[in-house]
């Protein structure tokens, strides 16, 4: 066992960890040591090939196939230098005021979060894509929304030099997406923060972390770890956990914090999503151009959000319901397919939770509430109306009686798409907006951390990622994670003199 000493250790390098790393980098100037431990690998630019399985294996936990405990939902989250910011689409929305008000976290103020989010929008080059770079898949969504009586809005995106590869979710092959791997982490490293990849934190004890550094396997993407493979004991005076809504609660649970924090792991939410497709008569530009340029927000009225999307052959095939000749026929129509991602705003309930198995690995228990299924059905109906209004010949709807709805039945979508056809285990449901598990709140009876991310009763331990969310965010989360992480880092800086002196 190798021993190391640091003043501050940050676990994770995604939207939370990358932000904290940059924000705490000034401590290095004062002679302090700051370390980031990232479980995944650090890829070089030429390794982003856009090939589906190869990139999913390199960048996602379980290769993108992490399933909930009962196997009815796939959870997609990144595991790389930059975390999930490597594999998102760069959509950059500021959280609505009513969401933060609804969270009711003492001291958490929407105006403060919004101000920080705006600063990150500037740092990450967030802007609206020029109309000339919008593909047919997105144009048809806007057109369909307008004809069906909905209002589509354009996503602000954090891109610099986007070439329209459409491969965002496999890691941009052109280094255009301004995730923490492009902006915050390099800045932190330039300032002297140390980042160690392939470093899996197995346990946090009293100001000490047990870390397993993995070797790079033959043929595996990414650089070898900055440290030699093996077991490490890393002492730290301050620890900031930013391992995602799955990884952070799991780490704290296997470290034994569950005994003093009864809410740890509970209140997991994830915006469960369907990928819907519709077939048009002619080929459209869908697998070129930024895939997620527009959205339609019905969160307050109907509990769902629609977003444009375009996925890769296997991901698309997996998300269509069924198999056999009908499934194949739809796949062969790929150049004519329009896609919409429907996301339901699920509410945090204690039963939906992160736990750990005997080996300390995360297990996510999730049951679809009746209201969540109802929101997905409403979202599917709205999508079908938008698809048909945009001219689609047929629509694939997982919660429909016959899955494929033909154009002549367009007027019957409310009747054909119904909650009784939503069969868990048959329909594909996936989620990439993973939230909760270390919720902020008043005290240990109702939450895990306070409004500045400090874990109740553990003055040297902080959380700074989406696990802090006490409930669904109702929008794409990365900008809010960064804003919250920035608040946590500010608190760490304020607490640092006392904590570092005491250590």
């Amino acid at each position, binding site marked *: 066992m190798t021993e190391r000493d640091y003043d501050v250790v940050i676990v994770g390098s995604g939207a939370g960890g990358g932000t904290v790393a940059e924000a705490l980098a000034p401590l290095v100037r004062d002679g302090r040591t700051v370390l980031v431990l990232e479980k995944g690998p650090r890829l070089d630019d030429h390794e*982003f*090939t*856009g090939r*589906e*399985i190869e990139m999913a*294996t390199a960048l996602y936990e*379980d*290769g993108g*196939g992490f399933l909930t405990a*009962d*196997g*009815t939902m796939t959870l997609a989250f990144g595991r790389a230098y930059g975390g999930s910011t490597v594999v998102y689409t760069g959509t950059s929305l500021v959280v609505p005021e009513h969401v933060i008000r609804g969270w009711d976290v003492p001291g958490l103020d929407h105006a403060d979060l919004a101000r920080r989010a705006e600063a990150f929008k500037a740092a990450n080059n967030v802007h609206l894509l020029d109309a000339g*770079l919008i593909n047919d898949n997105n144009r048809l969504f806007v057109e369909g929304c307008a004809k069906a009586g909905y209002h589509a809005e354009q996503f602000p995106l954090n891109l610099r030099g*986007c*070439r*329209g*590869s*459409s*491969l965002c979710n496999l890691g941009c*092959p*052109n280094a255009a997406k301004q995730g923490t791997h492009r902006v915050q982490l390099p800045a932190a490293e330039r300032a002297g923060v140390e980042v160690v990849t392939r470093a899996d934190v197995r346990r946090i004890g009293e100001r000490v972390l047990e870390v397993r550094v993995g070797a790079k396997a033959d043929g595996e993407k990414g650089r070898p770890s900055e440290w030699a493979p093996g077991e490490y004991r890393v002492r730290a005076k301050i620890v900031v956990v930013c391992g995602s809504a799955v990884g952070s609660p799991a780490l704290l649970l296997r470290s034994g914090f569950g005994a003093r924090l009864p809410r740890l792991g509970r209140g997991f939410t994830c915006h469960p999503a369907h990928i819907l497709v519709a077939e048009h008569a002619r080929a459209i*530009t869908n*697998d*070129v*151009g930024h895939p997620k340029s527009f959205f339609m927000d019905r969160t307050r009225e109907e509990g769902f959000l629609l977003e444009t999307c375009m996925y*890769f*052959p*296997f991901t*698309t*095939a*997996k998300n269509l319901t*069924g*198999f*056999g*000749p009908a*499934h*194949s026929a739809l*796949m*062969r129509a*790929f*150049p004519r397919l329009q896609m919409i991602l429907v996301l339901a705003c699920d509410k945090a309930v204690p039963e939906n939770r992160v736990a750990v198995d005997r080996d300390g690995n995360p297990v996510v228990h999730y049951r679809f509430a009746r209201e969540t299924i109802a929101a997905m059905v409403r979202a599917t109906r709205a999508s079908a109306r938008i698809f048909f209004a945009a001219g689609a010949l047929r629509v694939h709807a997982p919660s429909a009686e016959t899955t494929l709805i033909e154009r002549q039945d367009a007027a019957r979508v409310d009747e054909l798409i119904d909650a009784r056809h939503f*069969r*868990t*285990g*048959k329909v*594909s449901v996936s989620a990439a907006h993973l939230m909760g598990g270390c919720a902020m709140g008043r005290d240990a009876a109702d939450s895990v951390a306070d409004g500045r991310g400090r874990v109740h009763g553990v003055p040297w331990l902080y959380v700074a990622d989406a696990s802090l969310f006490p409930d669904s965010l109702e929008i794409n989360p990365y900008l809010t994670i960064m804003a919250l992480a920035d608040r946590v880092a500010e608190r760490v800086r304020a607490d640092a003199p006392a904590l570092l002196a005491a250590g």
Partner: protein
Amino acid sequence: MSDPVLPPVRTVFRALATTFVPETASLDERGWSALEAVVEDALALRPPKIRRQLATLIRLLDMLPLLRHGRRFTALAAGARLAFLAAMQDAPVLLLRRGVWGLRTLVLMGYYAGPEGATAVGYRADPRGWEARR
């Protein structure tokens, strides 16, 4: 390195695969090897218990049609195979539904994740983006 899952159940796996993705019926031995390699790679990341469960599920799906049709899955005609698996994906037991979903997902991965599967459906995404289409 874990033991491969498919060799002991290869005949049934291929019969199931051709039902899930009819195009696989035209694969030659090299094509099948490529598909099965993708599946084995994915399974290698899973715990031994899951790998054993998958092999058991494949055997079970071969035997279950005996109850209704008096024949194993591998002895059924294409239409009957499709109808049987459709019934299984609608089964009242969640374990069966998700088992069929998981097996189907592995076959879809084996077929569509490779360059041939992507080309066959006309997927043309290119890292050069718009420039590649001009």
